[in-house]
């Protein structure tokens, strides 16, 4: 009898070509070994603290709180990490693991470019080769990040298949991995794909909620009433939720990219509009037609422009532990501008989806309530695209 691994309820699993199975098993065994290895953890902690700048701040956004007139809002500042987003947390872990496994080359997909930049950074630091797959459409939306990756020594391969966005970059990275396995680690950037990736990435991102939980207890002497994060594949969200999952009183809210609205076809809100399927190595929710053809999703945010969601989120949705709400392009752009003006913090357009929901939720809550919003990345990379959205052409 066969035995399926890496399940979150009915979701997850390992739906990948046989060619990759031994590589995936080898990765799982290496991870099971190193995650409890004091030497590995010491090295990783050293990198996180002394290279990436952890712990990240939990910042009380007093002005934002006052203007919205409801719950106290704290921002978990993953935008302050080295490379400008939460992606570095996972990448340093996986790159170190790959190095221990004797791999010499990292490949990765990227949407907004944040994961690609983080992977290229780790590869530079750890002396590894690096190839990044990025949808051609996204290389245009995020030209600055393409340049950053090249500057860091990575090859950036524009992917022209399918919709030329994040899902196609994932497909192409998987294809590349089946071609060259021996010396190559696929550094997957989100809590998706086949087991053990959803677990490995979640564990490396869980540092967000481990810190945030301790920080809020220190600042307020109690747990928050809600934790809000944006969800594409869902890595910063699961990282933000993880250590709060056992705390029943803490609402966990994931903000999906609704694009032009969940009643249109131009959306990427997977939990809100998708159905269960099997794709990219996992069973989870996907935007698809009735024959299981994956839908060409849309969002202004290249990082959330993905037709699936990580299997643990699918499970948290099924059991009602987390809520997943849709945020439109318009709402996200408004939040992008609002946070910049009120707090002097320019969030990534991805993170602006989480801010947008906080702007709706906070005023409905009493002033003694507390919300933590994860600012998953900084928004410098988005300025040109947002300017275009507002009808202004700027040169980077």
């Amino acid at each position, binding site marked *: 009898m066969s035995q399926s691994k890496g399940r979150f309820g009915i979701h997850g699993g390992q739906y990948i070509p*046989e060619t990759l199975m031994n590589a995936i098993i080898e990765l799982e065994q290496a991870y099971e070994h190193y995650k409890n290895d004091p030497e590995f953890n010491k090295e990783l902690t050293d990198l996180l603290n002394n290279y990436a700048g952890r712990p990240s701040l939990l910042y009380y956004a007093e002005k934002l709180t006052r203007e919205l007139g409801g719950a106290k809002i704290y921002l978990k500042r993953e935008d302050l990490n080295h490379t400008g987003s939460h992606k570095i947390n996972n990448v340093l872990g996986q790159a170190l693991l790959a190095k221990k496994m004797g791999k010499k080359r990292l490949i990765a997909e990227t949407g907004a470019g944040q994961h690609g930049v983080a992977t290229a950074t780790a590869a530079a630091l750890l002396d590894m080769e690096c190839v990044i797959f990025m949808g051609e459409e996204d290389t245009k939306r995020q030209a600055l990040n393409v340049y950053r990756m090249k500057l860091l020594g990575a090859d950036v391969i524009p992917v022209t298949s399918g919709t030329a966005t994040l899902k*196609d970059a994932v497909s192409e990275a998987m294809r590349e991995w089946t071609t060259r396995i021996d010396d190559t680690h696929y550094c997957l950037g989100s809590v998706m794909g086949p087991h053990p990736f959803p677990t490995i990435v979640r564990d490396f991102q869980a540092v967000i909620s481990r810190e945030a939980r301790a920080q809020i207890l220190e600042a307020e002497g109690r747990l928050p009433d809600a934790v809000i994060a944006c969800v594409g594949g869902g890595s910063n969200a699961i990282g933000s939720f993880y250590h709060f999952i056992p705390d029943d009183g803490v609402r966990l809210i994931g903000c999906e990219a609704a694009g032009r609205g969940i009643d249109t076809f131009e959306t990427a809100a997977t939990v809100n509009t998708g159905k269960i399927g099997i794709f990219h190595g996992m069973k989870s929710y996907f935007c698809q037609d009735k024959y299981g053809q994956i839908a060409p999703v849309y969002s202004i945010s290249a990082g959330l422009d993905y037709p699936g969601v990580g299997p643990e989120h699918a499970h948290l949705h099924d059991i009602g532990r987390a809520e997943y709400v849709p945020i439109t392009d318009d709402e996200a752009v408004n939040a992008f501008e609002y946070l910049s003006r009120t707090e002097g913090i320019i969030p990534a357009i991805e993170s602006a989806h989480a801010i947008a929901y906080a702007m709706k939720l906070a005023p409905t809550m009493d002033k003694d309530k507390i919300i933590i919003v994860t600012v998953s990345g900084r928004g410098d990379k988005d300025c040109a695209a947002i300017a275009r959205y507002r009808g202004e052409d700027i040169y980077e």
Partner: protein
Amino acid sequence: MSNIRTAFQNGKAFIPFITCGDPDLETTAKVIRAAVENGADLIELGIPFSDPTAEGPVIQGANIRALAGGITTDKIFDFVAEIRKDVKIPMVFMTYANVVFSYDAERFMARCCETGIGGIILPDLPFEEKDEFSAIAKQYGVDIISLIAPTSANRIAMIAKEADGFIYIVSSLGVTGTRSEITTNIDEIVKVVRENTSVPCAVGFGISTPEQAKKMAAASDGAIVGSAIIKLLEKYGKDAAPYVGEYIKSMKDAVREA
């Protein structure tokens, strides 16, 4: 138990792959009949998927052309039912897990059974996940075809022991597509397969020339060819059938000599 094994009863088998609806179902019908007339022993029919992660650019292109032409799983089942009136050789589907899952696995297997589809090849359903469909497939007499790859190593025996229909040996690393050279030691893989099962095995991925087909069939029970045929469809479109027929004849002749 399906009729797949009959494909391996007349010496070494030649197995062509054709994407349904590329560029339309009329052409697919003509190509299937040309394949049968020219000696194909088993036909692998592709049900297109929007994001075929195991395919190289050639078969990706066929998927895109077919989907752009409005092909659906329902249309393919109706098509197979129709062509089954005169095409009697074994046929299997090759598609992706989500196509079967979304159609409802039981409904999918029932329609395979009705239309005489003996097996399904799902490149994204490894041994560990085959329980997803295996019980329901068995109930309807449809074989889930197991794949073995150059990297399978210690997994070959385990996979072979539970294999049904035939075993698809993936000749090379990477995705589908023609290759100038196949470097995997197929003999070693086949040896372990034979020690563990009497189910026949055929080699696919990268084969395009009669010499390659002969060599792979000599090492196993047959040769599978996809991308080289799809290239003819890409080139000749609706007029591809005679070209595919001629090609299949040359390949089957080579396989016969193996």
